[in-house]
């Protein structure tokens, strides 16, 4: 276990190195010049040259890459061309918000999908199962931005139950803990609905598989109580693929918040990347994508560890 973990953690910087090369090349070889966008067409060549020199954009691209990686190794993510603030400062502001949003979407997905998946598997091929399947189809099909619009219209504008914005603004619309949680509800539902569908389908199919196993017949032949059979004998087995998917999807959720953050005006990583791409703010794009990639990899390592913990047959 530990040696496996160490091996995975050693691999991580190597993969991240490949990630840096990929991000760097994609950004540099797509059209768009940050200096031009920032200063506009009507500018003096001197000002332009000064800006280029400041952000080392006058160097050949391979030198730019090496200098960037060299800085990274010293913990320096560079500065935003557009805002002139350190990228690390931006990350410190925005990463917690993105993590909180991903976590709330995840909680929503788990709370919905475990009962739904269980009931669908137990009531297989009945109207309850078909209803659950209908819900998951909806979850797979509806784009999260469209769902976000509907949620805002119904729950914010019509019913006034939830605020439209408010995450990261410091202002809360309700007292106490609810004031902290409330603004997250609609974005979490909009962001996590796809995951509820993924998890429900996964749990339903793994549960159906488990229910047909010989050891379930043994559990019945022992005369155990139905709830014990379901929760201990069946669910523990069915959770193995579920938990793995959970960790992977969490890593994924951090990277796909762009549209949701835009709609709900959330100052997270997604909206920062979006404006950085529009402005060709190279250091910001590079730094943020690198961090998202690192989180994705961490989530995968955690998935593997969890896999080993719940399934005693897995030994690393």
């Amino acid at each position, binding site marked *: 276990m530990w040696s496996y973990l160490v091996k995975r953690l050693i691999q991580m910087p190597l993969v991240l190195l490949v990630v840096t090369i990929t991000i760097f090349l994609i950004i540099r070889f797509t059209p768009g010049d940050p200096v031009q966008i920032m200063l506009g067409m009507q500018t003096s060549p001197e000002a332009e040259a000064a800006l280029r020199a400041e952000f080392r954009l006058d160097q050949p691209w391979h030198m730019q890459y090496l200098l960037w990686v060299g800085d990274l190794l010293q913990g320096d993510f560079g500065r935003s061309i557009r805002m002139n603030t350190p990228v690390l400062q931006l990350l410190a502001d925005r990463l917690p918000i993105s993590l909180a949003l991903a976590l709330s979407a995840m909680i929503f997905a788990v709370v919905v999908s475990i009962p739904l998946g269980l009931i669908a598997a137990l009531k297989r091929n009945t109207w309850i199962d078909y209803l659950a399947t209908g819900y998951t189809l909806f979850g797979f099909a509806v784009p999260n931005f469209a769902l976000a619009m509907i949620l805002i219209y119904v729950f914010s504008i019509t019913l006034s139950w939830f605020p439209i914005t408010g995450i990261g603004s410091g202002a809360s619309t309700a007292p106490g803990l609810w004031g902290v949680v409330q603004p997250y509800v609609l974005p979490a539902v909009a962001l996590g609905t796809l995951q509820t569908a993924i998890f429900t389908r996964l749990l339903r199919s793994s549960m159906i598989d488990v229910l047909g*196993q*010989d*050891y379930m*017949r*043994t*559990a*019945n*032949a*022992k*005369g*155990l*109580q139905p709830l*014990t059979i379901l929760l*201990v*004998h069946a669910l*523990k*087995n069915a959770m*193995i693929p579920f938990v793995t998917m959970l960790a992977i999807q969490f890593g994924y959720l951090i990277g796909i918040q762009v549209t949701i953050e835009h709609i709900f005006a959330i100052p997270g990583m997604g909206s920062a990347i979006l404006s950085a791409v529009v402005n060709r703010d190279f250091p910001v794009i590079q730094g943020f994508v690198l961090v998202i990639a690192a989180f994705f990899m961490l989530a995968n390592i955690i998935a593997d560890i969890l896999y080993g913990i*719940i*399934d*005693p*047959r897995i030994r690393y």
Partner: protein
Amino acid sequence: MPLLTVKNLRTRFSTDRGTVRAVDGVSFELEEGEVMGLVGESGSGKSITAMSIMRLIKEPPGRIEADEITFDGVDLLALTPAQLRDYRARHISMIFQDPMRSLNPVLTIGRQLMETLQRHLRMSARDARRRSIELLEVVGIPRAEKRLDEYPHQFSGGMRQRVMIAIALSCNPRLLIADEATTALDVTIQAQIIDLIRRLRSEMGTAVIWISHDLGLVAGLCDKVSVMYAGRIVESGPVREVFYRPAHGYTLGLMNCTPRVDDIGHRLRPIEGMPPNLAEPMPLCPFLPRCEMAVAACRESKPRLETIAEGHVASCHANLSAYWRKEKVA
């Protein structure tokens, strides 16, 4: 009074291709401490018979009917699901065919043993653990205390079957149903398991229904045997009676395809053809299309169970006495 009485058990399954009569009118009695063999090909209804007694068949698609299933004076058919759960493993235990897949892979052996004790005998965790160690020792698992905390995948097939037996015996049941319990095991392990079953039967007086397609094993272990074909018992009686003086074409056919170690060069004679489709009605003997002993009467009427000798019944029109052993049946 017999320990178990089964009268006219009928188990059916609704499928897309009609109703399959998996068990069609099975009756037998089992005395306290008696060992009964249930033999027949795959699909003859042996396992379904066993699972019907414990009502482990999923209903629907299955449907269990019987004139009577009485265990120790209690009508099992009248029990509610909750009452039935109190009987399972407590009074009637079952061992299944595939030990590799009959234990839960994510729970420790100890947990799987202890939960039965805690459920039925209301033991504390500590008592259940102590008893579990004893049970593992009884079934011959060395270093029982340590192995209790291991998972099924750390056990070999034979060891897992021992664990299954330990679980099945944990509450001292009065009836043990073993469904092909040794089929998946090496012969040496098989012999040890048989020995274990024999010992338990003599020490605890447990009655056993031993389901197998291994006639040799049944001959060595059981007091009496029932031969099943197409969902019915076609012949039954004391082991020596049935195997020395078989009275049904199918029993004889089965014996002819059983190899004997001391008969080198002897050609086995397979039973040609396939078992019948159980979804179709059978107005004649279901074995007729495959029977080498068939006589004219077989094409006219369905034979009924008739008494051949004391306790020995068979449903066959043909006279097979030419194939009987000459020695006196003890």
